[in-house]
């Protein structure tokens, strides 16, 4: 059952609609809507059969050749009925009828503390002069594993595409992510669904397996994930990566594992994951070969040994107790840590978990950074922040708060074409990004989507560069909390940033541990 929303009004303008004028001639809206808002009857006439199912993604409007569809929010009803909103009532009915909870993809919706109430402080006369974006350079490079690895990762931009596994996303989406990373010199992470052979040469910018035709510069980095399900994992898999990520958790479902239903394990997915076709692929919530932090240290040690001490080891954390968790990752031997916030989550998850479990992204940063500082490894062990990151402004704020880089998961899917319809779990992604249906997958051209991803990353990097230079810096490593101000008390209390007007930290503030 789709998530019943009831907060949008769907209007089809009959004078424009081709089908209204010529029944049977067009049904684009019926074909693309993942929630069956539209239906076609025996006479070939399209009608709106379920207004309440609309989630406001506006995919129908995008595909309508005559611009005949309007989707408008209906917030007033939503607000006056709270807490017994239409979606809440329908969700209870759904559980009462089926005995099953709701699933959903695409992360937390609605309000959560965010970067929005933080403002950037530009440089004027009392601080180092602004840098000239046109004539002067600005260093955005981040190096991971410089002191520990033979082959450190040198990111051209401080960005990565976080783990989105084959199975959760389509083959075409995986290829696009690698092409996008290859064009921008950033990381693409395999996720836990195994490694597509094509990715190993696409990520380096080659358009053929023989690696004779280099098409995309400068080439990116592939990080292979080591997780609790260990799908498709072998010594060769581990060695194929430019880095290895030990997954502890993720924003969409911290404290939970993953579960690819047997019905979705096609021949291609089965081959990559190394399991029988149709077999359930359960990723447990914890490792069955780790019982404590000492085991985790040993795991990192043998991963370094298998890779001949050449590549960095990453850790991926869900949003829990950032200070203690980050400390544990450092003790275990991490070269880099990705911490994913409540808002994050490209993966399908129980709706109550994706909506209500974990710490908002912005609140994870101060304790994480403090943990790194307390251990004397801030800026040496790199911190990447994930979860709802949208643009160069979010990236700047996260990095001024002490992160070394950020990851774009949902934003990367949107860059490929996604309109956030939240149907990722259904397998009916209209853009072929999170679907394994050949017909839907055919809608996603990996090269075109890869180009779009590269454009998005380049534009976002430019935004980051503009902000860095207008605040008087020529290197992102020089950003600091002094470059930011909180715009309300709540944000000042969460982040420890100086409050606008007051120009000081809140007097009682200290970083949480």
């Amino acid at each position, binding site marked *: 059952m789709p998530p019943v929303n009831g907060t949008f009004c769907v209007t089809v303008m009959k004078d424009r609609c081709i089908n209204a004028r010529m029944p049977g001639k067009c049904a684009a809206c019926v074909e693309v809507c993942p929630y069956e808002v539209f239906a076609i009857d025996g006479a070939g006439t399209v009608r709106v059969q379920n207004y309440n199912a609309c989630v406001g993604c506006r995919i129908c409007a995008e595909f309508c050749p005559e611009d005949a569809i309007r989707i408008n929010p209906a917030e007033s009803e939503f607000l006056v009925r709270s807490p017994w909103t239409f979606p809440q009532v329908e969700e209870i009915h759904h559980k009462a009828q089926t005995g099953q909870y709701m699933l959903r993809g695409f992360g937390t919706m609605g309000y959560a503390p965010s970067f929005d109430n933080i403002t950037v402080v530009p440089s004027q006369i009392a601080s180092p002069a602004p840098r000239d974006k046109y004539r002067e350079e600005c260093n955005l490079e981040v190096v991971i594993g410089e002191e520990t690895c033979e082959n450190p990762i040198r990111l051209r931009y401080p960005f990565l595409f976080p783990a989105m596994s084959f199975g959760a996303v389509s083959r075409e989406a995986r290829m696009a992510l690698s092409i996008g990373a290859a064009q921008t010199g950033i990381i693409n992470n395999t996720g836990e669904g195994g490694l597509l052979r094509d990715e190993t040469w696409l990520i380096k910018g080659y358009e053929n397996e023989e690696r004779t035709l280099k098409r995309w510069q400068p080439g990116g980095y592939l990080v292979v994930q080591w997780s609790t399900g*260990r799908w498709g*994992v072998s010594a060769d898999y581990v060695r194929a990566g430019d880095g290895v990520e030990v997954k502890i958790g993720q924003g969409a479902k911290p404290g939970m594992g993953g579960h690819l239903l047997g019905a979705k394990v096609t021949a291609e997915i089965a081959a990559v994951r190394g399991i029988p076709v149709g*077999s359930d692929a359960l990723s447990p919530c914890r490792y*069955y*070969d780790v019982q404590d932090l000492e085991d985790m240290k040993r795991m990192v040690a*043998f991963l*370094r040994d298998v890779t001949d001490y050449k590549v960095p080891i990453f850790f991926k954390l869900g949003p829990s107790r950032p200070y203690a968790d980050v400390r544990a990752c450092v003790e275990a031997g991490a070269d880099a840590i990705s911490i994913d916030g409540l808002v994050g989550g490209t993966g399908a998850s129980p709706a109550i978990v994706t909506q209500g479990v974990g710490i908002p992204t912005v609140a994870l940063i101060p304790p994480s950074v403090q943990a790194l500082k307390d251990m004397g490894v801030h800026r040496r062990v790199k911190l990447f922040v994930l979860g709802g990151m949208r643009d160069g402004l979010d990236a700047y704020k996260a990095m001024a708060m002490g992160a070394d880089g950020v990851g774009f998961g949902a934003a990367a899917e949107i860059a490929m074409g996604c309109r956030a319809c939240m149907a990722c779990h259904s397998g009916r992604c209209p853009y072929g990004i999170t679907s394994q249906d050949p017909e839907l997958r055919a809608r996603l051209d990996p090269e075109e989507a890869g180009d779009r991803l590269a454009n998005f990353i380049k534009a976002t990097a430019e935004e980051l560069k503009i902000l860095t230079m207008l605040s008087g810096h020529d290197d992102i490593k020089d950003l600091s909390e002094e470059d930011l101000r909180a715009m309300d008390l709540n944000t000042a209390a969460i982040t420890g940033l100086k409050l606008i007007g007051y120009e000081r930290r809140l007097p009682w503030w200290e970083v949480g541990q």
Partner: protein
Amino acid sequence: MSLVVDARGRDLRSVSTELKGAVAKGPVVIQEAAHLHGLAAGFRSGEVIVEGDSGDYLGVLNDGATIRVKENAGRYLADNMTRGTVIVEGDAGYGVGAYCYGGTIVVRGNAGDFTAVMNKGATIIVVGDVGDEVATYMLAGDLVIVGNAGQNLGNYLIRGHIYIGGKWESLGHNTLLAEMTQADLAKLRGYFDEYGIEADPTTFKKIVRLSEKPFYK
């Protein structure tokens, strides 16, 4: 004649570097290695003989080597192995053959809890007894237990076969006691002959999954 590597007082990187070079030349005997965890990780070929006990994660990601332990092995023996053979003359700890995709593990003594957890294709033979939650979430491969098993044997079994010669304290969710076929008997005879195990296949019982959908109770 085998090469000998003395691991006494040395760290994993130092011993491993020497071991990687030595296995290409012939069988290698490694001594005093119980303090090293993750030894012989990801080897594609060669033969490693551990004199005495081994540490945890011995032969992790093994991809073709033969590894023998003269006495006892630690936890997570041959974790995530894809090919090769690992033989332990004594006991082995928790999580023997966890996450394995292939290869063969033989433990001549007892093995701990969560042996064969998430096994995806390996053959794992335990001549003694095994602990609790053995073969949990197993997806493929064979687990042969000549002795007895603890609680929740085969819990949430997805695919694969469990053969047991002794008794079990309890069976886990999604398990079914199935008829032994001639093919099963022949397979067990083959295992026992190959690894010199004295056991009568006709006394064994076979456990398979009950349902194709183990996650819906």
